[in-house]
């Protein structure tokens, strides 16, 4: 049944061309081999929207972790984050860990925090308003979400600059590996020493902040160890910062270079930043893959994925599925065949329209989805308001890249120079 018209060579996943433009490979996989067994990397690759969605929804067959979640586990020996919530698979412990912090990132908790997000955005933009020319990634986007999350945690504001440094080393270690990994682990250790007294303090005295809440949380009367608290914080700093800062840069890249015509619409109606966010998450999301492990044999489209197999859910490919979205390779903020508003963890909407897959779906749907959107939209709107009529400084741009899609390297422009009058 599978017509492999143009077979995919698994080494293509490791090629520089794939990191720059993976979309032709995605299309060949969707068309010719949607349940692809990559024997070279020993994993399975899902690329159609329907299949990626189904795997996200099916926690009984697809687990985030490969080991027994109730079994023994050596914590974070080589992981930049140290022990963290993402390693707990589909277990109750994962849900418990998420519930400790989840209501800070959605609903009322987030609404109450929005004035602080606005204040931090205003401070950063104020700093650059006289420059008339900035490199967005360094001047704004890598600065903003990390300051928001450290504020939310309750870390002292005077230490924010130090945190930005540690944070940058952490995410470089995560994205690039090698010597960056060593620097990332060194930054993690410095951060951990710094956090010790702050954690101690919260073990003794109640603090009404996120760090206090993490320290005080109990499961069956047991609190997290210091290492678990730190792993949690490192994850929040990196996951709550890195993805969002790259989302902001990607939105601006698409407005400046991909659709300058639609940027004019946004300048007239800043509420459209919400649409820019949604379409960016579909067209070329910051993260393109999520990994799952099968808990049993899974039959799909006439093939059988064996038990304990690694499965790559290519949400970046599902988002370009022509079976779901018209003209999937066109960036269009006025799209009528996709839910453009706020995302749902369920991936289901009252409108019956499909949503983008950029945050995943279901059990491991991005915890910070609502906050990420708020941050990206608030910062972008304020920045545009300050600039008025911004334009790219250079006509040619190398485009959105990633160090390595398969090792979780996030897709983003290296630099983004903008000027205004």
């Amino acid at each position, binding site marked *: 049944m599978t017509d492999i018209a143009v077979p995919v060579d698994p080494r293509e996943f490791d090629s520089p061309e794939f990191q720059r433009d993976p979309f032709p490979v995605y299309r060949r996989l969707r068309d010719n081999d949607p349940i692809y067994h990559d024997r070279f990397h020993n994993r399975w690759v899902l690329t159609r929207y329907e299949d990626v969605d189904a795997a996200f929804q099916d926690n009984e067959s697809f687990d985030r972790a490969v080991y027994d979640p109730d079994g023994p586990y050596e914590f974070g020996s080589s992981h930049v984050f140290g022990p963290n919530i993402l390693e707990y698979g589909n277990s109750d412990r994962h849900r418990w860990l998420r519930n400790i912090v*989840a*209501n800070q990132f*959605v*609903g009322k908790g987030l609404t109450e925090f929005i004035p602080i997000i606005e204040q931090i955005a205003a401070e950063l933009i104020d700093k650059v308003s006289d420059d008339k020319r900035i490199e967005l990634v360094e001047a704004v986007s890598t600065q903003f979400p990390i300051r928001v999350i450290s504020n939310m945690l309750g870390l002292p504001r005077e230490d924010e600059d130090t945190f930005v440094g540690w944070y940058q080393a952490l995410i470089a270690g995560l994205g690039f590996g090698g010597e960056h990994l060593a620097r990332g682990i060194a930054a993690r250790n410095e951060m951990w020493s710094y956090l010790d007294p702050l954690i101690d303090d919260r073990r003794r005295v109640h603090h009404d902040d996120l760090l206090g809440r993490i320290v005080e949380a109990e499961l069956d009367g047991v609190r997290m160890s210091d290492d678990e608290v730190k792993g949690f914080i490192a994850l929040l700093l990196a996951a709550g910062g890195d993805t969002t800062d790259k989302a902001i840069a990607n939105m601006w890249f698409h407005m400046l270079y991909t659709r300058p015509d639609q940027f004019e619409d946004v300048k007239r109606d800043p509420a459209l930043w919400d649409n820019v966010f949604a379409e960016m998450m579909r067209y070329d999301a910051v993260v393109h893959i999520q990994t799952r492990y099968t808990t049993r044999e899974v039959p799909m489209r006439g093939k059988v994925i064996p038990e304990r197999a690694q499965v790559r859910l290519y949400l970046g490919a599902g988002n370009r599925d022509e079976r779901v979205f018209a003209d999937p390779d066109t960036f269009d903020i006025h799209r009528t065949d996709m839910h453009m508003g706020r995302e749902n*963890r369920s991936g*289901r909407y009252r409108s019956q329209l499909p949503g983008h897959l950029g945050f995943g779906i279901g059990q491991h749907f991005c915890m910070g989805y609502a906050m990420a959107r708020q941050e990206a939209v608030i910062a972008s709107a304020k920045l545009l308001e300050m600039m008025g009529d911004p334009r790219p400084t250079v006509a040619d741009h190398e485009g959105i890249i990633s160090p390595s899609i398969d090792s979780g390297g996030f897709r983003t422009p290296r630099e983004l120079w903008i000027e205004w009058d």
Partner: protein
Amino acid sequence: MRVQIDLDACILAGECIYNHPALFGWDEHDQPVALVPELTADQVGAVEQAISVCPSGAIALVD
């Protein structure tokens, strides 16, 4: 106490179901449904948590 879900307000976010699968589920029409008719004290705490992560404010505790 028991759970009340306002289906007109609900946007199908699914937060309650994924965070508290023992208490909330999907019915045959893919609408959220409370799975436990009468809540224990522990379950009330869990429902309060579900209320706090519900983005549409569709969940309530009633006597």
